[in-house]
């Protein structure tokens, strides 16, 4: 059954068809949530909440990009998680973000162990930089540079204009770049940005 047929069945309340869509999009949803929240547990909660809300709201889906429609629900679920986190400030080590599963870094068999460690360190630094961004810029940057959405798709997901997408993305990238420059001393030499 193709995606459109699954969407039509899910709109009629078919949970099995919707779960097929979940299996198709759960990786994207979880990665977006994790990059926005920087917390695997919060990302899991946001992803689960997003799919539940999406299933309840399927009858309101009027066509168009299901991916964009779902990502908007995911980002809103992430905002809900962030608001909860603000009401419950972190006070213990248990609340600190834990490392995500970095086994994906080992996809290159030819990569040496030290290279793998360096690349993982770079990934941590980038994620830390993303988490420092304002949430609107963070979301735009994640959708653009992590998920590869176009400006139009981002404007559709976030419900903002193309100009706003451009400006938020530009500022977010600049801030992340500045963060990476600041963290240059902690990064391997090949990952250090040349200071001006």
């Amino acid at each position, binding site marked *: 059954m193709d995606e459109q047929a699954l969407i039509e069945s899910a709109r009629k309340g078919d949970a099995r068809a919707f779960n097929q869509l979940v299996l198709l999009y*759960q990786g994207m949803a979880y990665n977006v949530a994790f990059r926005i929240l920087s917390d695997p547990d919060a990302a899991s909660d946001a992803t689960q909440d997003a799919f539940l809300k999406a299933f309840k709201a399927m009858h309101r889906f009027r066509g168009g990009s299901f991916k964009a429609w779902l990502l908007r629900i995911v980002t809103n679920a992430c905002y809900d998680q962030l608001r909860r986190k603000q009401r419950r400030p972190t006070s213990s080590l248990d609340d600190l973000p834990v490392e995500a599963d970095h086994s994906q870094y080992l996809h290159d068999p030819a990569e040496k162990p030290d290279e793998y460690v360096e690349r993982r360190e770079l990934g941590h630094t980038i994620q830390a930089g993303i988490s420092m961004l304002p949430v609107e810029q963070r979301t735009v940057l994640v959708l653009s540079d992590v998920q590869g959405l176009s400006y139009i798709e981002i404007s559709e997901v976030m419900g903002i204009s193309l100009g706003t997408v451009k400006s938020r*993305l530009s500022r977010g990238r*600049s801030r992340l770049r500045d963060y990476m420059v*600041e963290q240059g001393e902690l990064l391997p030499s090949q990952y250090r940005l040349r200071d001006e």
Partner: protein
Amino acid sequence: MSRFKSAGTTEHGYFEERLSAYLDGELTPREAEAVEQHLETCSDCQWNLETLGQTIQWTQELPTLTVPRVFTIPVPAEPERPTRRRWNLVPVLQGASALIAVLLVFAVAGDLIFSSLGVGSAPDAALQRAEAPSSAEVAAELAVEVTQEVEKAVEEPAAEPPMMMAVEATMVETVVETVVVESEAMVTATEAPLAATGPEDAWSGIEGETGEAERSLGTDMAPPPVGEEAVAGGGEPTLALPAPSALLSVTEPNTMAAQVAMAPEVERDEVEIAASLEAAASSEAGINWLRVLEYSLGGALVLLVAATVLLIIERRRAR
């Protein structure tokens, strides 16, 4: 707090904000050309462009994380399979019962209408059936009167010669036969209704009359009637008795003439009787058909109501 050179001038800030879109190819050709011209002369924007590109590349190279678990939503319990759809027969049976009840009402109403129409035809037929024997009685009375006349003639002293008596006896016998034939015709006209009451008496009366007439053949001394002269003088007696009226006038002219005058009326009555009988028969056939329909509908209605009640009871027990 940026350690990097930000837009010191309006022109520099304008291009610096567009470097991100320039890297993504989201600028119009004219904007892109202007950015490129600015980059040729602005080292800060060159640095910005280079570091931004590197940051974007690193971000894009972030690994795709595997999901820690499956996020499928809980599927409701297996929906009840309509293995065998149970049709709810109660409304169907109720509807059928109502329909048959309506039909039954129409049938009863039609029966009543037919019956009310039959009040004008069937009772008339019955009345005419009651009157019908009177026609046979007329013939019987005629025969009885003829017999009485013959007996009276037998009781009188025989004055005529045997030959004459023989001729007269033959004549009387012919007269009796004629009367019998006429009675037969009348009986045939009245058919079944007459057979119930009058015909047997009529036939017996006629036969008795014939026997007595035969017995009186040898002693009949009565004066020759009017027709007798023609018979005596003319030859064959049958020719002298062409019609019953002539015979009737022999014995008792006044009474018999009146009775013979009634004959056409009797025939007309017989035709009307036959017509009314046919009408009554058709009316009875319609009524019988309606009765059959009423009984059928009534039986079906009873069966349907019983089936409906049983089905409802079974449903309640099942619950």
